[in-house]
């Protein structure tokens, strides 16, 4: 297996060779009719439930528009967290190996936020608000560093499942499909980097953490994944799509067996690296 240094050198080279300028690459229609598919129907939060069955095609397509705005909003907030954390880590002690790649990472995340933000503002006139709330606290040696990269990895693994599916869905509006493709194309490198640095940091610090710190780290990552998943069920988007009782709807959906089965399947996929290092088990993600 390549060392972290060899991996970052390779990723830097690929980022340079496949540099994408999203400012000129995307063809932005002035406006978009809402009676089209913006998000793949099977990815809609209501899919597989009686609430989805009760909607006609026009309502489902309208919902797909606002759920895509919600999905892009989730990406904007997640990438802002990443950009803040990556910028803080540039040229810190012990980051000499990865700093060259952090420049590309930052540059690419900034460009992603540009197209997500433009889509939301141009076609919906809004970005939905973030729901995550963090509380300041003390950390054990290496804990904050590990949690930052592990959260980033879980987040990117989750949104990439959606990106990959929608990048191939021919029924979607072209600009929506293209943005999903572009994001997946660059995130694939971030994921390779993310999985590797999570493994390295865990190996470096975890054996020094007492049991209660390991428990705290586990707890925090499980709750982070759960909170991110729940952001896909946004009552504000349901209200905009014309659905009744949006807060009751969210509660109903999150208690639905088919939704829970989808969450479990996704969590298994997204947490693979954390299973591999032995921090989490399938039971801890349930």
């Amino acid at each position, binding site marked *: 297996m390549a060392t972290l240094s060899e991996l970052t050198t390779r990723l830097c080279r690929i980022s340079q060779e496949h540099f994408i300028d999203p400012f000129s690459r995307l063809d932005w229609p002035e406006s978009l009719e809402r009676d089209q598919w913006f998000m793949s129907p099977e990815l809609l939060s209501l899919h597989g439930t009686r609430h989805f069955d009760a909607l006609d095609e026009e309502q489902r397509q309208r919902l797909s528009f606002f759920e895509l705005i919600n999905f892009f909003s989730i990406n904007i907030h997640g990438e802002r967290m990443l950009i803040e954390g990556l910028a803080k880590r540039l040229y810190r002690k012990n980051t000499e190996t990865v700093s060259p790649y952090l420049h590309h990472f930052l540059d690419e995340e900034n460009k992603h936020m540009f197209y997500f933000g433009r889509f939301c503002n141009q076609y919906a006139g809004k970005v939905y608000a973030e*729901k*995550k709330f963090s509380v300041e606290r003390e950390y054990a040696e290496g804990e904050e560093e590990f949690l930052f990269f592990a959260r980033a990895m879980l987040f990117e693994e989750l949104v990439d499942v959606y990106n990959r599916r929608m990048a191939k869905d021919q029924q979607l509006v072209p600009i929506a499909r293209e943005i999903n493709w572009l994001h997946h194309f660059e995130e694939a490198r971030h994921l390779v980097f993310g999985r590797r640095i999570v493994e390295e940091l865990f190996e470096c610090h975890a054996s020094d953490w007492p049991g209660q710190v390991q428990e705290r780290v586990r*707890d925090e990552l499980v709750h982070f994944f759960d909170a991110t998943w729940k952001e896909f069920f946004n*009552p504000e988007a349901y209200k905009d799509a014309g659905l009744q009782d949006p807060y009751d709807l969210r509660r109903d959906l999150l208690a639905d067996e088919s939704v829970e089965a989808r969450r479990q399947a996704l969590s298994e996929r997204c947490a693979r690296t954390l299973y591999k290092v032995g921090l989490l088990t399938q039971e801890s993600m349930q």
Partner: protein
Amino acid sequence: MSIDTRDALRQWIAGVSDKTTLESLADDTPLFRNGILKSVQVSDLILYIEELAGRAVDVEQIKPGAFRDIDTIHRSFFTHDHA
């Protein structure tokens, strides 16, 4: 109305915490200082507050200490001068 909201919050907190009971949880019991809730549970608490209030909570406007106890949560999110 406000009594119902406090009771609903009390039931939710007692339901998710193994460090308290419905009977021992007063409106001024410190939730985080006493370890009744963990910081990772705040996101779920915000979703529950939204459900009770029937409207979105603006996370960016939440003031420090807004989740200190049931009374403070009530004052912060269910009165006219809420966050």
